């Protein structure tokens, strides 16, 4: 993966992207108010950086994201380990999970706003829901896919009930769980913006709404790009952490 993201590739890729943007800007007749040029968007970004507005909103969003994502992942993994182990119980829970899973977290928004009001909580709850089901189901299946030989070995060496969870079950299921945690990061980030667009008066999502309300298409585009950049950075960070942990784990499957 490192090769895919070499500096040269990044620069060329972005250069082409900006070029196409510029060409579209020059050939379209929307005008600056509807479709700003790269330069305009850049200037809007510089403006937000200079008055610090963007950093306040990034901070707010990151706090909500961390709270929602981390609490969701921890809950989903713990619950997934238990349900994956006690398959009998999961059989009775799975139908409801399958019913809830395809519902977009945004569908819960009216209730969430009614119950928790406007502010940090709606975005946190939306992110929690967005990350929860994929990680839960993946953890359950990871526990189910554990090579039976590990459990045989554990039994043979007299490793008993509570210990078997952190000595065998969790580490054996870990690679698949880590993969789902990684995938859920992207989903959760997507829904952070959606959640903030509806349920908040601050954050990156709100920045979008605010820009629209003020008819500032340049700020809008700048905010969109910032959201993309942060998503990219978060993904790369997690990839680094994942790689490091997998090395401690003993290397990935060949």
């Amino acid at each position: 993966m490192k090769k895919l993201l070499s500096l040269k590739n990044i620069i060329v890729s972005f250069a082409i992207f900006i070029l196409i943007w510029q060409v579209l800007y020059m050939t379209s007749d929307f005008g600056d108010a509807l479709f700003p040029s790269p330069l305009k968007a850049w200037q809007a970004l510089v403006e937000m950086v200079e008055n610090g507005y963007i950093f306040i909103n990034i901070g707010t969003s990151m706090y909500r994201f961390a709270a929602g994502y981390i609490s969701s992942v921890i809950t989903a993994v713990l619950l997934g380990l238990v349900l994956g182990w006690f398959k009998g119980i999961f059989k009775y829970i799975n139908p409801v999970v399958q019913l809830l899973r395809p519902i977009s977290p945004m569908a819960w928004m009216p209730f969430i706003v009614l119950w928790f009001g406007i502010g940090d909580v709606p975005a946190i709850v939306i992110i929690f829901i967005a990350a929860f089901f994929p990680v839960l189901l993946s953890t359950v299946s990871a526990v189910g896919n554990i090579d039976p030989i590990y459990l045989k070995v554990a039994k043979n060496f007299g490793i008993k009930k509570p210990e078997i969870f952190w000595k065998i079950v969790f580490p054996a299921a870990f690679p698949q769980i880590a993969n789902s945690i990684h995938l859920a990061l992207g989903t959760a980030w997507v829904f952070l913006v959606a959640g903030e667009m509806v349920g908040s008066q601050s954050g990156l999502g709100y920045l979008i709404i605010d820009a629209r309300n003020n008819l500032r298409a340049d700020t809008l585009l700048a905010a969109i790009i910032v959201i993309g950049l942060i998503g990219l950075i978060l993904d790369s960070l997690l990839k680094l952490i994942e790689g490091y942990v997998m090395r401690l784990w003993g290397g990935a499957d060949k």
Partner: protein
Amino acid sequence: MYIEITNAGKTFKDGGEELRVLDNINLSIDKGEFICLLGPSGCGKSTLLNAMAGFDMITEGSIKIDGKEVKEPSVKNVTIFQNYGLLPWRTVQKNVELGLEPKKLSKEERAKTAEKYIELVGLSGFKNAHPRRLSGGMQQRVAIARALAVDPDIIFMDEPFGALDAITRMKLQDDILAISKKENKTVIFVTHDIEEAIFLADRIVVMAAHPGRIKSIVDVHLPRYQRERTSDDFLLIRDKVFEIFNMKHIPDIEFVI
């Protein structure tokens, strides 16, 4: 007798069809014996081993070890598998320590015991490596060290060298023979390799399929150490086993009048 198998049988139900995997098995094994279960695939040799190890129960008859009916796996009888069963997230050292963890030992004692057995199998230089970094033969050595570390009475081995190349295999055969005699372990060893069985065993239990049963038991009257794979006595026993499997080809005699 140390291990006593009486009239043991096992029937699988496979979608209405009954499969007789073990039929009327009677076998007595002494302490310290090296027994090879030899036979083609489907003869129930692994099923019999799993039943002795307590992983998979028989449906009739009884298996007693040291006078006690086998009902579940025991720390005293460790199994070594063909695909090693090492935990990839643990280093060699931590893998060998696994079986010591439920015992009441201090951290230092545990580490020392593990190191001793890692040295015994010749892997001292690799104690901090993860299993994936090691070759198949080295991984199986780790599994052997892990089994020995808990000082078991019996070691069950289920085609342990089946996945290794011929040279590594012979080296490990030498080693396991030396170790089992030195540590005075009872070993039950499943294999489908006739020469491996003759090289290792005190007695070879030859099994046959459909239903899985004991066909014959061959005493291997060879010196316990440094058996010569090419010696006459070795070949004689090989001949005998070939005969049991009906694999000896008697050349057609042409009659010319």
